[in-house]
């Protein structure tokens, strides 16, 4: 064990950072879109959702990674589902206990973290074949990559759709007197889709290597 890899070696740092940009689960892999449309009307629920997914994915990745040698390949999906479901129930109970209002707003979407493709995807693609520590970093990185998009989308949707940020009115009252109106399209799910599309556009025009050749 003398040539032990340092905890934050370059390789491990990359696990944490690439999902934020070049391998972003939403804008590059286009996973987890449904919840990105559903919980991004306001910034606060989007933020709570981000924290919840980080918790589920990081802990889940570690658990799967610890169990990876004992899981029989034929039943691995069921084992993964049990792990996700237990964690999601835990998260749901914590949210209900401490941030009841937000939990109300998120309603069914906390439970639907179970079906979030990103989580199952990371279990299959990473945790099943890697050690616990890299799996933990990978989980945090991917969930954060998901969350950062959620928060950007929610920021614009709340600002343009409700004129507020984190529930505080930021568009001055004078603007409304001059005839400004909040954009109703941003409250609707298509508004989120358009914002995500614009993020993808910006990302691809800044980094040409992401553009597929056809």
């Amino acid at each position, binding site marked *: 064990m003398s040539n032990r890899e340092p905890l934050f070696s370059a390789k491990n740092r990359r696990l944490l950072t690439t999902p934020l940009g070049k391998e972003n689960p939403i804008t590059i892999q286009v996973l987890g879109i449904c919840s990105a449309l559903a919980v991004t009307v306001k910034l606060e629920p989007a933020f709570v959702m981000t924290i919840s997914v980080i918790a589920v994915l990081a802990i889940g990745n570690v658990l799967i990674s610890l169990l990876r040698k004992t899981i029989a390949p034929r039943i691995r999906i069921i084992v993964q589902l049990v792990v996700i479901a237990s964690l999601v129930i835990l998260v749901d109970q914590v949210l209900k206990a401490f941030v009841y209002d937000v939990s109300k707003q998120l309603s069914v979407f906390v439970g639907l973290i179970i079906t979030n493709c990103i989580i199952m995807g990371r279990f299959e693609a990473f945790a099943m074949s890697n050690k616990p520590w890299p799996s933990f970093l990978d989980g945090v990185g991917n969930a954060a990559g998901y969350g950062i998009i959620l928060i950007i989308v929610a920021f614009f949707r709340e600002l343009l759709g409700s004129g507020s940020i984190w529930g505080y009115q930021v568009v001055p009252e004078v603007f409304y007197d001059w*005839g*400004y*109106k909040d*954009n*109703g*399209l*941003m409250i*609707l799910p*298509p508004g989120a889709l*358009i914002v995500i*599309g*614009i993020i993808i*556009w910006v990302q691809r025009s800044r980094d040409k290597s992401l553009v597929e050749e056809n």
Partner: protein
Amino acid sequence: MNGLRKFIDNIKPQFEKGGRFSYLHSTFDAFETFLFVPNLTTRRGSHIRDYIDMKRTMSFVVIALIPTLLFGMWNVGFQHFLSMGESATLWENFWFGFVKVLPIVVVSYAVGLGIEFIFAQIRGHEVNEGFLVSGMLIPLVLPPEVPLWMVALATAFAVIIGKEVFGGTGMNLLNPALTARAFLFFAYPQDMSGDKVWIAEHGDAMSGATPLGNLLTNQPLTTSASDMFWGFIPGSIGETSTFLILLGALFLIITGVGSWRIIVSVFAGGFGLAALFWAIAPYIAPDNAYMALQPWYHLIMGGFAFGAVYMATDPVTASQTNRGKWIYGVLIGVMAVLIRVLNPAYPEGMMLAILLLNVFAPLIDHYVVEGNIKKRLKRIPVKA
């Protein structure tokens, strides 16, 4: 004309590579080819000798739109004074509407062309001529009371999200003018629907509801068919006069710019379904005033005729194959009537019907082409 040509030829070198204003090349090119038919010939492939290029085609559509625009201006004034209970002369009516409508047209063109020019400079290609028509269509499908900043925002949205992200004119999936309208319709519904917005500076003497709005709330129709045909009803600026729209359609068909197949099939599809509803209404939904409507009313109300003639025929977003055009047109008519009659949320279905079929047009074409290939393959004798 010769003087203008000489002037352009004189300043041209400054805009070419290495010239002082070479970064404005595409802007210069846009104006030059707008004024004069370019003397370029196609380099490769087979080609047809024709002076009608894209800019000339677009100009024909704008010419076909001018009667509806002028009438729309007059009608805005007419509806205003009518709702105030005052009578006004032809000129007073027109002037009132002119002052209301002209800013909308100016804003739509300024914003749209501004964005087109910027994108052309950045991407280094020619300015797309598609906006000549879109810029005129956008004001015509909006209510007269729409705030100007909304026009600007919707135009920007339509040009950037509806067109430029797909690669500019010729590549867009959705009709840009309808994209602008749909944006406003969903973003600011209180300014785009209901009974407050259709008459400019509306007085209290009469309700501002359009015939479509009346029917949706199951009130009897208060306007006569002839008023609807000639266009003396409240509504979006350019959509009210079916008569002038049909004149425009005639012009488009004669010049070969608009497809008669699409226009005819949209009307046929709408009429067919409306007639079916009319026939079965007493048996299945006796209290749905919309369903019991005589089928010809559907064709002269709201945006049906305008959509059929100017929107559905957009050569970029419509089906390209002849058989595809029939399917595309009939489905637009059917969908529009279906949304009007059966959806309790939207009094008008033309916009949504056309946008939906815009999305389906490539699929329709695909199956028409595939079908044709299959049919022809059968004619090849099987080799043993």
